[in-house]
């Protein structure tokens, strides 16, 4: 159910926040081990739900009043235990509440708990050495994607209309693409990170995974304290860039077909489709990785040295990569980032308002195909899953991941990215496309 539908039921007094939370509680119980939860906090959530019902009766309902939500297990809430998807020894009780949770609380949202994630937000598949891998409801046998694995699965299962995630190299966008939901990675600095687990100061952002574009932008508007619009506007006539280069040459035939259908649809809507050679973006993958690993190894320095074997082998392997990164390489990577930001403005955003790239090369990979990766193979596997998402992380671009086609094996998604601060324009186009696709699905004319 979407946020708009939930609010409509509440406004018409067809239900209450408490009754909605009871429905969610029943669905979580029915899902059993399939529910991608790390820790449930029903007592506090019912207190929030009762407060939401009172606020609505008093005419003081906030924009998310009574809407049940849950979040990646990496955000502080005073008095709650935060797990980080890590070994139980890493758990700690938070003394403060993350600014993003405080903003959702103030908007009236009902936060019932913590969702599974990759260990310390490191890992694009969703596999977790300590806690297993959430089941992807959209792709049988497929990975759920990570690191915001539980957030994507919870939305795809219909447990929540939206859930918070974080994104350093694709950790909102990859699970969104794997599970066929919307993921919205905002510009760095738009959403506060205070009280959120750090991984890479240069590239970390917090944003929503959601059941629809409308759900995502309503949540983002609250997270950004109103700096982005919660409502859509016609996007106008846009110049939309697609890639024709080595960056995307490895995508599947069906992804290629979905992109062709999308270009045709956009032209029919009056947009100008621009085809650019963006192959140079592929040269950003290693600088993005070097910055992320160097900063992550610094975040984890004390714990890693004190208890290296409390980390799962995949995460320990990635942190070990830092031993192969001299300080000069980190600084060179930062220089490459500055050069690339300038080049993106001059070459891409001078020619186009927004860029559309595949979310993944194909549908979510099968878990069995990735399970055997060990040691240095892990770096190759990670590079394969993040090659299309890392450039926007390094460039600091806002990106929305949108499902655009459904195949027999799962959903196919694209990334819509724009310049820093283009969240509203991105969401306007995405919402327009989503509405058109739902109309096609309703008429049975979805191209996929």
């Amino acid at each position, binding site marked *: 159910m979407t946020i708009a539908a939930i609010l409509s039921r509440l406004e018409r007094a067809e239900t209450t926040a408490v009754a909605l939370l009871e429905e969610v509680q029943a669905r979580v119980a029915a899902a059993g081990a399939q529910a991608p939860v790390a820790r449930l906090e029903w007592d506090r959530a019912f207190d929030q739900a009762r407060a939401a019902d009172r606020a609505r009766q008093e005419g003081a309902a906030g924009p998310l009043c009574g809407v049940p939500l849950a979040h990646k297990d990496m955000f502080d809430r005073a008095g709650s235990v935060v797990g980080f998807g890590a070994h139980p020894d890493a758990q700690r009780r938070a003394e403060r509440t993350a600014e993003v949770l405080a903003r959702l609380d103030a908007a009236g949202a009902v936060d019932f708990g913590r969702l599974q994630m990759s260990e310390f937000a490191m890992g694009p598949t969703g596999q977790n050495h300590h806690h297993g891998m959430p089941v992807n409801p959209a792709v049988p046998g497929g990975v759920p994607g990570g690191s915001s694995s539980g957030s994507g699965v919870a939305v795809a299962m219909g447990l929540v209309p939206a859930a918070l995630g974080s994104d350093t190299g694709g950790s909102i966008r990859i699970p969104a693409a794997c599970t066929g939901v919307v993921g919205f990675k905002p*510009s*760095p*600095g738009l959403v506060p990170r205070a009280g959120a687990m750090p991984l890479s100061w240069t590239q970390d952002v917090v944003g929503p995974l959601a059941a629809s574009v409308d759900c995502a932008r309503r949540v983002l508007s609250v997270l950004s304290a109103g700096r982005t619009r919660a409502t859509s506007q016609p996007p106008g006539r846009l110049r939309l860039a697609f890639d024709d280069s080595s960056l995307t040459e490895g995508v599947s035939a069906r992804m290629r077909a979905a992109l062709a259908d999308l270009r045709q649809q956009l032209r029919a809507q009056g947009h100008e489709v621009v085809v650019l050679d963006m192959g*140079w973006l592929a*040269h*950003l*993958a*290693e*600088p993005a*990785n*070097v910055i992320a*690993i160097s900063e992550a*190894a610094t975040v984890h*320095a004390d714990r*890693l*040295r*004190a208890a*290296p074997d409390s980390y799962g082998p995949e995460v*320990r*392997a990635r*942190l*070990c*990569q*830092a*031993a*192969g*990164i*001299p300080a000069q*390489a980190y*600084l*060179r*990577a*930062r*220089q*490459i*980032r*500055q*050069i*690339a*930001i300038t*080049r*993106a*403005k001059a070459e*891409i*955003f001078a020619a186009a308002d927004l860029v559309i790239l595949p979310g993944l090369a194909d549908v979510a990979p099968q878990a069995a195909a990735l399970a055997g990766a*060990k*040691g*240095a193979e*892990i*770096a190759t596997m990670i590079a394969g899953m993040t090659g299309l998402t890392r450039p926007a992380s390094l*460039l*600091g*671009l806002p990106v929305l991941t949108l499902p655009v086609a459904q195949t027999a094996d799962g959903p196919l998604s694209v990334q819509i990215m724009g*310049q*820093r601060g283009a969240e509203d324009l991105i969401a306007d186009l995405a919402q327009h496309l989503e509405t058109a696709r739902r109309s096609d699905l309703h008429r049975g004319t979805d191209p996929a």
Partner: protein
Amino acid sequence: MDQEIAALLGRAPTEEERAIARDQRARVERGIFANPLLAGGPQAALASTDPFGGEGGA
């Protein structure tokens, strides 16, 4: 390389951990020091690029 890994982990590395660090060092050579985006720019401009300048994105 063993010293760098030991500084990270607080113990001697395993052979697999050595292989990971060596693999990353090779990736750094290819993807950072030989990155075409560095080669394409005038050296003077590159030398003056502040790695921490302009925190904004594109």
